[in-house]
């Protein structure tokens, strides 16, 4: 079906709110850690595509019922922000709910996925709201259920990063899958508690390299980019990824560079070659903490924010050297960021993703574990919204029909995208 660019295939939009079915507690509040507030300007936009059987025979009321039951066990994202006397935001668990958007699409699911796999397409089925300007009345999580002509459904989730990282978001969604199969956890999912260190604001805080100070954004948690950003994504099968690894790791005596780091090295070098004016000497790597596993909680501390620096331009290093740098020479700045967020007794506004070229490892994110009535998603797309000008590279698992591998999604200033595409194809056949 030919779709003209102006005609929006999404129609019949209805907006409502869905919250916990049971009262979650009088005057319950959730304090936020420094790391949560450091990530507050970012939003995770994920879309899960389900086949017809997943929601077959369910009316919207049936679906809402599963959501009401699900949110009994995850009531914190249903709250709204308030500010304490010192101006520090916290979440009031008032059961206000997540925003639910129902929509229909004029195409079938296969047509939709085949028409284009670019970010603009997926954006149509994911809510794009941010927190603010009315911070007290902005939902933290938005869901969009788009029904295709064939009966397939796209579940779009907008998750405010202040609640937790992509792993927390995936855990949150997987609870819904459990609810559709009448399985519930023993306890509700809560936010991780950490003891706040005593702040010594007198000593000069070293500015973390992984963040960019912006703002003040006030109650409207969004920034604007100096250049227009575009997202280019491509799939890499496991076989191709193995080939990439061997191509990078020429010397077998050195340590084996894992898949994510290999992709980082390849993309970093291509970006350095494409971006002539500046040497991309510093990148940020976001990886899940290998030591502690944060199951059953929402947190921003499960993802460590690390910085890698080179002394010379990356163009002059071999990909293997870059890969080894990424593995061995990273500096974990998570704790520094947490201290720096409260400087001079005032809360700062930070951009973490995109302050430098940022690589985010979501290969272990349990996104494909969302099981709705026994059906897994046939495709998933992840994106991070509101990122800095230096760009973000997301690596997450990809299973489309019979394809099995990873998807690399690069958000970069639009002027460089054509060259970057050409460079990646030329150097790495990606």
């Amino acid at each position, binding site marked *: 079906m030919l779709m003209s660019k102006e005609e929006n295939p999404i129609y019949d939009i*209805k907006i409502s709110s869905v*919250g916990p*079915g049971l009262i979650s507690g009088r005057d319950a509040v959730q304090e936020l850690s420094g790391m949560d507030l450091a990530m507050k300007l970012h939003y995770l936009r994920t879309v899960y595509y389900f086949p017809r059987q997943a929601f077959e025979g369910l009316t919207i009321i049936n679906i*809402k019922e599963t959501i009401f039951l699900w949110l009994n066990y995850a009531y914190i994202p249903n709250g709204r922000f308030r500010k304490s006397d010192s101006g520090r935001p916290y979440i009031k668990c008032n*059961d206000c*709910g997540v925003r639910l958007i129902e929509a229909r699409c004029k195409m079938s699911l296969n047509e939709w996925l085949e028409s284009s796999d670019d970010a603009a397409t997926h954006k149509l089925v994911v809510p794009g709201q941010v927190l603010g300007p009315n911070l*007290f009345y902005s939902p933290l999580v938005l869901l969009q259920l788009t029904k295709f002509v064939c009966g397939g459904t796209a579940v779009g989730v907008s998750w405010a990063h202040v609640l937790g990282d992509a792993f927390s978001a995936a855990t949150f969604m997987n609870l819904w899958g459990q609810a559709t199969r009448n399985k519930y956890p023993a306890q509700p999912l809560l936010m991780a508690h950490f003891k706040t260190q005593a702040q010594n604001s007198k000593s000069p805080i070293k500015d973390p390299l992984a963040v960019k100070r912006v703002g003040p954004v006030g109650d409207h948690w969004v920034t604007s980019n100096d250049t227009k950003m575009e997202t280019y994504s491509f799939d890499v099968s496991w076989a191709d990824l193995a080939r990439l690894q061997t191509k990078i790791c020429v010397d077998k005596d050195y340590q084996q560079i894992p898949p994510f780091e290999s992709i980082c090295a390849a993309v970093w070098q291509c970006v350095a070659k494409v971006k002539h004016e500046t040497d991309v000497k510093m990148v940020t790597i976001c990886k899940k903490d290998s030591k502690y596993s944060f199951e059953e909680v929402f947190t921003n501390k499960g993802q460590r924010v690390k910085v890698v620096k080179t002394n010379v331009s990356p163009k002059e290093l071999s990909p293997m050297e870059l890969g080894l740098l990424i593995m061995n020479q990273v500096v974990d700045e998570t704790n520094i960021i947490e201290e720096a967020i409260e400087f001079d007794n005032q809360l700062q506004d930070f951009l973490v993703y995109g302050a430098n070229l940022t690589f985010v490892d979501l290969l272990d994110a349990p996104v494909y574990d969302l099981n709705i009535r026994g059906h897994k998603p046939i495709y998933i797309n992840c994106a991070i919204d509101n990122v800095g000008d230096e760009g973000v590279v997301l690596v997450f698992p990809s299973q489309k029909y019979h394809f099995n591998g990873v998807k690399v999604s690069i958000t970069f200033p639009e002027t460089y995208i054509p060259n970057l595409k050409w460079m990646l194809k030329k150097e790495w056949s990606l």
Partner: protein
Amino acid sequence: MPQPTMPDFSNNNNLIKRRKYLKLSYQYFVNHFISFLLIPIIATVAIQLARIGPDDIIATIKSFHYNPVQVLCSLFVLIFISTVYFMSKPRSVYLVDYSCYKPPITCRVPFSTFMEHSRLILKDNPKSVEFQMRILERSGLGEETSLPPAIHYIPPTPNMEAARGEAELVIFSAIDNLFAKTGLKPKDIDILIVNCSLFSPTPSLSAMVVNKYKLRSNIKSYNLSGMGCSAGLISIDLARDLLQVLPNSNAVVVSTEIITPNYYQGNERAMLLPNCLFRMGAAALLLSNKRREQKRAKYKLVHVVRTHKGSDDRAYRCVYEQEDPQGLVGINLSKDLMVIAAEALKSNITTMGPLVLPASEQLLFLFTLIGRKIFNPKWKPYIPDFKLAFEHFCIHAGGRAVIDELQKNLQLSAEHVEASRMTLHRFGNTSSSSLWYELSYIESKGRMKKGDRVWQIAFGSGFKCNSAVWKCNRNIKTPINGPWEDCIDRYPVHIPEVVKL
């Protein structure tokens, strides 16, 4: 010797205690006047009989001459009088049992959600938004009230299909529950009365019930619409009158208000108030005049008093459905609603008082009335103490102001109005069915005992004030299967004057 000076408050305390005992003894004396009269008479007779002696008594009795015709005539007269008495006595109407609709969790609308939706829907009218916020903060509603699915949307999507859907959901659930509780079979329903003020489709809601449950073709069905929140008691009155005419019959009364078609979508302030207060609810009752239901019936209907102030223009226009300047339909509540409600209540009480108040209160009221008319008009009017006539009060949970006003006027304690306040908090204003949620609250708390008298008061558009008096027929044991089942232990709660958002 100089008197030791007593502190003032101790004196006052003594005075108060003395007045209390005086009042108690006065009440006891007047209310048991007959007993006080009879006791000396019986004593005198007993003493006389004792003095005469048993033999003399027997001789006196034997000396009566019995004329058979006289005896037969006296017997005949006696039988005639008792037959006339029993035939003209109104049939007792019993409330066998009732059930209240409990909305599913998918209909829950927490406070904050309602506020947020209002802000989004009225975003072009910040003044109306602020007004609605202020109302909600002081409304006395809680976090678990329910709205039908169509009203959860921003903006709401009321249409006839959704309204019928809500009607079927609430009415059929309540009736199914009633059947389960009482073991009633659909074919045994002789009278069916459904009251729903603002939604009146064709065929009527009572026809909808007849169709769903395949009721008999000679059923006496009625559908009352447009009669406001007091329509529940009007239905009870109608059922009672019908049960006088039809012997050995069952009547099912369904009271509800359908919210879907009545959400006001405009921004006139006087018309936004009902949106904040009205919530989903329904109640189904089984009334009967069958002798065999007497044993298991929960309550006996004692009085129904209806007062209609519609002849006064101000009262008539007090709750008025109309179009706003933009053509949107809503219910306009006038500013003197409370004043009119108080007047209607006074009228109702004036009729109710002589029926239920003990003789002591009626005498006092009479004396004060005479005194004010003849001696000194400045005397304070005596407000009879209705707490002596009733153990429980069910005041229609129309809003916090209504309950406050009645508590003040009738001088009720916090415990007396607890059922009303807690129903408003948990279920909101469910219109004509709220009285039944309140009664269920009292039962769930285990406070209802055999012989307790309950006074149900409802106000409604028109302006009407209707009351019903019930007497509890048997002890009601907890836990009862009702809408308060899962939350009664959390109640009573303290409802703050202003809820912080």
